């Protein structure tokens, strides 16, 4: 298929439809409104259902219901709305239900701003809701990657029976870029024998539930889920290493920030400074071993995490580097976007230190 020029939010919505998503439940919030708008327009025409719920809490519980019935289902929101969904997300993880949750992050805390931010990293990767659980968190840097990750994300969700989050930001949602929708091959997925599709006596009753009142039973249930997480950590890590060979300083950045860093890398090169980029594409599972391996290289003197936050991913970078090299942080927050000159300045300052 030919390339089309699309807004990020619309590309994400179209990718979901092409991946077989037929149910969308949401509530409006800037800067992701084009996703529900697109779904509202398209889904009824192809036999799907769009519902604008009365609240985010309601929307995420509709996702629980549709997923329990075996449907491919998605919801989207932006930071404050995602906070409201946390209870439902925890229940979805506890009941082992697959679904896609899109967070087009804006500045926080509180109602915050509507400009791009990455300050929901902790919420996305370290829980957000209560209890022992993880979501798979996918962080695209380009619209084409967003399209590809949405499609694969639905398969990851189904394969592991676990919620998957696409973590973008206002810039990714609002910008336009050419994208191509090539037919997605898809993974071999097991049939959803667990879904509550109506009991007719031909199989055991299926029960979807996250209440395990007996602590021993709950511990066993959580341990079973964590076996699944081990497999995800082993098989699903995605990371891009860019210009790392020979680099003195390696920058860690994800999503739109990584694009700004790529510009900084070419600016640094022009001044004779070798800078690399490690770009986690999955934020959970995090590519710890990639950081560990580059930290072992003689030529790498330091790491710098650049984020649109006050420093969240930097904690995972430190775990990966494991004390082998110093790890620095540079960030802007509240909807402010780091300027390439400021990042380059920071790199030069670190070079003076190490």
């Amino acid at each position, binding site marked *: 298929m030919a390339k089309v020029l699309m807004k990020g939010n619309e590309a994400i919505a179209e990718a979901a439809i092409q991946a077989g998503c037929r149910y969308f439940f949401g509530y409006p919030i*800037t800067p992701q409104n084009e996703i529900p708008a697109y779904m509202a327009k398209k889904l009824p025409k192809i036999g799907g259902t769009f519902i604008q719920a009365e609240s985010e809490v309601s929307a995420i519980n509709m996702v629980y219901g549709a997923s329990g019935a075996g449907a491919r289902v998605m919801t989207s929101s932006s930071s404050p709305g995602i906070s409201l969904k946390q209870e439902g997300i925890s229940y979805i993880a506890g009941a082992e239900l697959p679904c896609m949750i899109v967070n087009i992050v804006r500045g926080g805390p509180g109602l915050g701003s*509507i400009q791009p931010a990455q300050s929901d990293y902790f919420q996305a990767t370290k829980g957000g809701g209560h209890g022992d659980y993880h979501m798979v968190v996918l962080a695209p840097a380009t619209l084409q990657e967003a399209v590809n990750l949405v499609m694969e994300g639905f398969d990851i969700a189904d394969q592991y029976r676990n919620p998957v989050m696409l973590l973008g930001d206002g810039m990714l949602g609002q910008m336009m*870029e050419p994208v191509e929708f090539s037919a997605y091959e898809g993974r071999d997925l097991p049939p959803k024998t667990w879904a509550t599709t109506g009991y007719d006596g031909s199989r055991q009753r299926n029960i979807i539930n996250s209440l395990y009142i007996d602590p021993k039973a709950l511990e066993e249930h959580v341990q079973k889920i964590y076996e699944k997480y081990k497999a995800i950590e082993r098989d699903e890590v995605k990371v891009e290493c860019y210009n790392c060979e020979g680099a003195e300083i390696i920058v860690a950045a994800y999503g739109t920030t990584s694009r700004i860093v790529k510009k900084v890398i070419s600016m640094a090169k022009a001044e004779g400074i070798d800078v690399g980029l490690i770009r986690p594409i999955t934020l959970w599972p995090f590519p710890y071993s990639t950081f560990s391996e580059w930290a072992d290289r003689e030529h790498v003197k330091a790491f710098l995490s650049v984020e649109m936050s006050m420093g969240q991913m930097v904690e995972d970078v430190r775990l990966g580097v494991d004390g082998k090299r110093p790890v620095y942080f540079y960030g802007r927050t509240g909807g402010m*976007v780091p300027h390439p000159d400021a990042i380059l300045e920071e790199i030069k300052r670190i070079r003076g230190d190490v």
Partner: protein
Amino acid sequence: MHEEIIMAGFGGQGVMSMGQLLAYAGMLEDKEVSWLPSYGPEMRGGTANCSVIVSDDLVASPIVTDATAAIIMNKPSLGKFQDVVIPGGSLFVNSSLVDEKCGREDIDIYYIPANDVADEIGNSRVANMVMLGAYIKKTDIVTPDSVINSLKEVLGPSKAHLIPINEEALKKGAEFI
């Protein structure tokens, strides 16, 4: 070839659609493109701007910090964006609405009475296309044909009658270069 353009004006002046058309035209010519809007609580009559990158190479950051050109549709935008243009770049000012001059001597400046030209050819709403016509003539970044082909895609058959006046506006704009 690597062009980074800022387009700015009032909401309703077609600033966003001018940027989208340029990005679309670049894509039709197999170039790498991105379009990034300022977004916020904006409305008709408020200020609006967008950043477009058209390049032979993959677009790294879609944010324009060093513009090779700026298209200024109204007075507040001149003050805001005239210094963003790199030395050797170009500035296109809609002199129908901007009575100020830019004092810089290290860039090429074109004053184009885009609203007057658009009124002359019969529709004040094509002032943006007059400016775009001047810009693509100066930079050769895309052909007028590609812009028109993009417009045909965007407008669809029901608005095909608007193509000739847009074509005319591009031509009139080019005459100022």
